[in-house]
């Protein structure tokens, strides 16, 4: 029995070897063959399946360029392998060469694709391959069912594998949106669940959708395992991920599929390569059963989503994007305080909806209130029911001025999609009394700390009209260059000249008077002395001395311009000093004057005395003459 089999197998083996050699030889017979590129790959693949594309070149070449692989992702390659053989038949040597360039690619979408041409340069000529067509089909198993309206429906994912033992029925992923259409700002929960009948390990998300047009938050209650019955089959389910999506703008969106990689444990049965063996016990599952870990790539379906814009009708002026069901509270913590004491305005929004994205209204405070940046506190949870929680905003405010103030009312409005209408929650505002604080008054004896501040410019306008006296004058009339102007100037000039002339004249006059008196003086003196001389000769003492006295006094008073009324020895001396007559002479003169007065009473010869005085008088007068 065994021998027969052995013989059989040997025979088969020999056949195989011969077949191989023939196969190898065949291409050698056709020696003069053209260099060409042959493409081999599967003609039909499943979406997401990885498969090989091999370009075989039957010659040595350089500069191999692969095709563009549009519509596919290149997972690996190009990898080159070479084989060559030499044949010598009847003395002639034939060499055959085969260079293979292989790629591993993966289809991205369904359809018919052409793998473009590859090229290589052989002996200076460019050799190209023929385009190769590949048909990409959708996943096997049930396709995604879609329904409009608010019904939750799921999309079943595909399994890509070359192994028929793990079918799409055993292992798939589903994307489960809570709604397929919502308002802008309305939260939607999207869950991703894995359904499996076989053990699964090494689960990883290889591609997450990017959720363009949505605001996302991961839910806190995800990643749970449970079991479910679908179509009569029991599955173990695992929630891979759950997110809350809030559409930010209106429109139609497509949420990309999520791609998940994992390892599935499957039972494999080795098939008999030699055909049906009548001997059954080699087919015993006990011997040939084994487990294999098969890598799987799972895709969810894509989800089409419609975001509707909020209705305009009934939208309050204060509406700022809140969607859901909320309650609003606002309060201030004190209504009476002193200046520079702080109070807090707190606003709270709570409920479910897009709480995290809610914009609380901005309060308006009176001027002279210093407002600090608000403190925002969020307590928000995203879970399977959506998003809910509380958002609190606190404003710290310090009034800087005393007085009675009002804080304007605040309105918070939101849209409730389930009721289909807007709601407005008002806060009526508050009155605040601020008393003058102790810090405002000056401390005892100290310098008053000024509480001034710059004037706040609120607006600008032209300055007001002039309402005072207006000096209306004829058009284009001026004072400048007018007759009056010239008259005034000329008048001034005339005044000037006249004044000049008058003063000159006056001075001249005065000068002349003095001059005249001066000139007269000498003449008069001589005249007097002459008289005195006559009396001298006549020996008339009384008249002589009288004449002499008069001559001298008169002379000096005229000469020096001394008034008769103030004549005396002192004034004469003074005047002589003033005129610059030297002291000796002035003393001499004064002496002479003295002698004149008292000589007549002095003892001595009358004639001698008279002569002496006369001579002296003449002498002294002449000396003075010479000086002045």
């Amino acid at each position, binding site marked *: 029995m065994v021998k027969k089999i052995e013989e059989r197998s040997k025979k088969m083996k020999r056949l195989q070897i011969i077949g191989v050699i023939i196969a190898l030889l065949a291409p050698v017979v056709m020696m003069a063959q053209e260099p060409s590129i042959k493409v081999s790959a599967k003609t039909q693949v499943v979406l997401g399946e990885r498969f090989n594309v091999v370009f075989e070149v039957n010659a040595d070449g350089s500069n191999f360029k692969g095709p563009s692989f549009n519509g596919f992702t290149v997972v690996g390659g190009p990898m080159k392998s070479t084989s060559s053989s030499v044949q010598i038949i009847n003395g002639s040597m034939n060499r055959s060469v085969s260079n293979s360039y292989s790629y591993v690619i993966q289809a991205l979408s369904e359809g018919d694709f052409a793998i473009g041409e590859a090229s290589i340069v052989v002996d200076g000529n460019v050799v190209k391959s023929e385009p190769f067509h590949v048909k990409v089909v959708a996943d096997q198993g049930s396709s995604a069912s879609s329904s409009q309206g608010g019904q939750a429906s799921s999309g079943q994912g595909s399994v890509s594998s070359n192994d028929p033992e793990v079918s799409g029925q055993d292992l798939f992923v589903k994307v489960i949106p809570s709604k397929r259409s919502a308002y802008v700002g309305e939260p939607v929960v999207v869950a991703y669940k894995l359904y499996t009948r076989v053990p699964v390990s090494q689960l990883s998300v290889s591609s997450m959708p990017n959720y363009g047009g949505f605001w996302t938050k991961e839910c806190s209650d995800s990643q749970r395992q449970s079991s479910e019955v679908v179509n009569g089959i029991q599955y173990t389910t695992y929630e891979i991920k759950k997110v809350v999506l809030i559409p930010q703008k209106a429109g139609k969106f497509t949420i990309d599929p999520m791609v998940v990689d994992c390892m599935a444990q499957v039972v494999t049965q080795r098939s008999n390569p030699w055909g049906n063996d009548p001997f059954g016990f080699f087919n015993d599952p006990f011997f040939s059963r084994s487990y294999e870990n098969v890598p799987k790539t799972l895709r969810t379906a894509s989800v089409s989503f419609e975001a509707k814009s909020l209705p305009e009708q009934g939208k309050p002026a204060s509406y700022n994007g809140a969607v859901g069901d909320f309650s609003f509270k606002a309060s201030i913590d004190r209504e009476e305080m002193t200046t520079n004491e702080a109070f807090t305005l707190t606003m709270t929004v709570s409920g479910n909806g897009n709480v995290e994205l809610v914009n609380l209204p901005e309060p308006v405070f009176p001027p002279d209130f210093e407002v600090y940046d608000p403190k925002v506190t969020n307590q928000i949870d995203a879970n399977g029911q959506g998003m809910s929680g509380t958002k609190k905003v606190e404003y710290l405010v310090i009034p800087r001025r005393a007085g009675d103030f009002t804080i304007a009312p605040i309105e918070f409005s939101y849209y409730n999609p389930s009721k289909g209408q807007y709601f407005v929650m008002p806060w009526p505002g508050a009155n605040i009394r601020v008393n003058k604080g102790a810090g405002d008054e000056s401390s005892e004896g100290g310098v008053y700390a000024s509480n001034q501040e710059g004037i706040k410019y609120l607006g600008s306008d*032209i300055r007001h*009209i002039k*309402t005072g006296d207006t000096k*209306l*004058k004829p058009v284009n009339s001026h004072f400048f260059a007018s007759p009056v*102007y010239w008259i005034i100037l000329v008048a001034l*000039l005339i005044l000037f000249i006249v004044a*000049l002339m008058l*003063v000159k004249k006056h001075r001249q006059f005065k000068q002349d008077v003095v001059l005249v008196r001066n000139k007269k003086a000498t003449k008069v003196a001589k005249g007097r002395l002459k008289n005195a001389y006559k009396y001298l000769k006549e020996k008339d003492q009384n008249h002589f001395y009288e004449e002499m006295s008069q001559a001298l006094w008169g002379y000096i008073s005229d000469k020096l311009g001394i008034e008769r009324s103030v004549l005396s020895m002192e004034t004469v001396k003074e005047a002589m000093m003033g005129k610059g007559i030297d002291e000796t002479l002035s003393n001499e003169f004064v002496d002479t004057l003295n002698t004149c007065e008292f000589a007549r009473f002095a003892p001595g010869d009358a004639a001698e005395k008279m002569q002496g005085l006369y001579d002296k008088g003449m002498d002294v007068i002449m000396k003075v003459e010479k000086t002045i």
Partner: protein
Amino acid sequence: MKKIAMILSFLVLAMTGMAQSNNWFEEGNAAYNEGNYEQALTMYGNVVDSGLESAELYYNMGNTYYKMKKYPMSILYYEKALKLAPGDEDIRTNLEIANLAVVDKINALPQSFVARWWNGAKSSLSTDGWAWVSVVAFALLLLCLFAFLMARRAGWRKAGFFAGLLLLLCLAFSVAFAVGNYNDQKRQDEAIIMTSTVNVKSTPSEAGIDLFVLHEGTKVRILDTMNGWNKIRIADGSIGWLQTESMIAF
């Protein structure tokens, strides 16, 4: 006798005329305060028609036009007011505010330091203001001359000489400024564009090439006139021709 009567009656008429004009002015002001701008303009217009003018009158008219949102006219009257009272701050401020409404933004050629100083000093007083200054300077100058010539003491003469020199300088400047302001007013060679948009041409005819576009409220200087066209220059030095009727000179 008749002549005296005539002169007297003329004087009386003139006085009452003045009084009447003053009344119109005040009525105009009252109308303005009530917001009745049309009426205010009518009143002010009466004063102008009677041949009288003053800086206050033109300023108030400028304000009135501004309130009526007729900005080019407002600018025109502010400029007229400024010529009569160059140093007045109210007029300057309001002119600046009115100019904000002008569409054209022209980068004026920079003035030399000397030119700026000269114009600034000249503008600090009106023509008549400088005229009075010159009279006083002249009088003081003569006084100093007198001292220089007549004083006996050397100290007085020296003082007279230097003070006189200084006053001569003052006189020269004040006369120069007065002449400058006087000429500015006499020449009437500045204008405000009144048409909302005009094309400035290269030659004084409609067929001329369009050089640049100006809008109402822009101030231009008239260099020449021909055939109902004015050769104008704007603050950045550009020159062209515009029809006379598209602007009002002041």
